[in-house]
């Protein structure tokens, strides 16, 4: 049986995603391992999350549909790119954002962002869903539809244990 990470990447490809970039997080290390190992994905390992969003924007302008992987710490780094590039230029992307600090149980540097991440996404008016294997297919389908209709970024929040293998 395919690993959760393989299944997730297959699902993304089925929904038309064909450009992959980002900055790693241990919570989706299974995905990054596949992306790094298989050249057909053309995965670009970015130096910062906002730079990954820039790469994604360029790929979209060139005709692709991008996915950007990032830790939620990188969501803070990405705020200006989201509001002054993607959202005003109508550039869609799926953000796969790990949820470090979920439930207040994590290293100190993750606790505040872990606590405010959902209000932060709401404040930035980014539609999102929390990764749950039972609803994953429906959520990816819904988020992708919203993303295409609005031509704005949407987010899938990935908690611990979901995509580590």
């Amino acid at each position, binding site marked *: 049986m395919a690993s959760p990470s393989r299944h997730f990447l297959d699902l993304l490809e089925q929904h038309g995603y064909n*450009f992959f*970039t980002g900055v790693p997080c241990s919570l989706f290390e299974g995905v990054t391992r596949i992306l790094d190992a298989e050249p057909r994905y*053309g995965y*670009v390992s*970015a*130096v*910062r999350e*906002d*730079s*990954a*969003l*820039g*790469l*994604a*924007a*360029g*790929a*979209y*302008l*060139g*005709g*692709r549909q*991008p996915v950007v992987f990032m830790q939620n710490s990188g969501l803070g780094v990405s705020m*200006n*790119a989201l*509001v*002054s*590039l993607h959202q*005003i*230029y*109508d*550039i869609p992307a799926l953000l796969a954002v790990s949820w470090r600090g979920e439930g207040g149980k994590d290293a100190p540097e993750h606790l505040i962002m872990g606590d405010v991440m959902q209000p932060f996404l709401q404040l930035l008016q980014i539609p999102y869903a929390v990764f749950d294997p039972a609803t994953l297919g429906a959520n990816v389908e819904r988020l992708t539809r919203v993303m295409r209709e609005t*031509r704005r970024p949407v987010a899938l929040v990935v908690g611990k244990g979901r995509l580590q293998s």
Partner: protein
Amino acid sequence: MKRAFAVARVADAVDVTGADCLTVVCNGMIGRELYTHADAPSRFYMIGSMGLASSIGLGLALVQPSRTVVVFDGDGNVLMNMGALGSVAAAAPPNFYHVVFDNAAHGSTGDQRTISDRVPLDAVARAAGYRSVVRVRDEQALTDALRSFLHTPAPAMLVVDVERGNQPGIGRVEPSPSELTARFRARATLKTRSA
């Protein structure tokens, strides 16, 4: 050399090179000078997200390998996201041309000094692994460099030393951001002769 003059000369060289060229231009006065000189659907103007022009250009160059991608950048922009020079060098797209207009100042906010007078961006790009890097300091050198720059091995960088100060009469980019995206994406995904 005035920056608006240098921007216009580079734009003319891009236009001479051919219809396959796609230009991404950073936020600030450089984009406004390019727009005022000669607008075209093949030019993508940024009005925000400072520092990301090279990342956008890199993503574009990777997915459109048959097109020549030219990034118009400024020293403040490059310094804000200097790690992107490493991304460009590591990915090494052979169709990526990076032009940096360097006045060692933030020209759009009142010419406050940057640090590019002490951190030479051509040396940084060379160390990162750009395949060709050249710096020009006057109009004759720029003219000479532009004869071959867009045909040199890439990723390539051309640093153009320009004076501080803004030329009067430079307008703002008129199309809305979403209009800029729509027209540029249509141009970038158009099947070209070589594609």
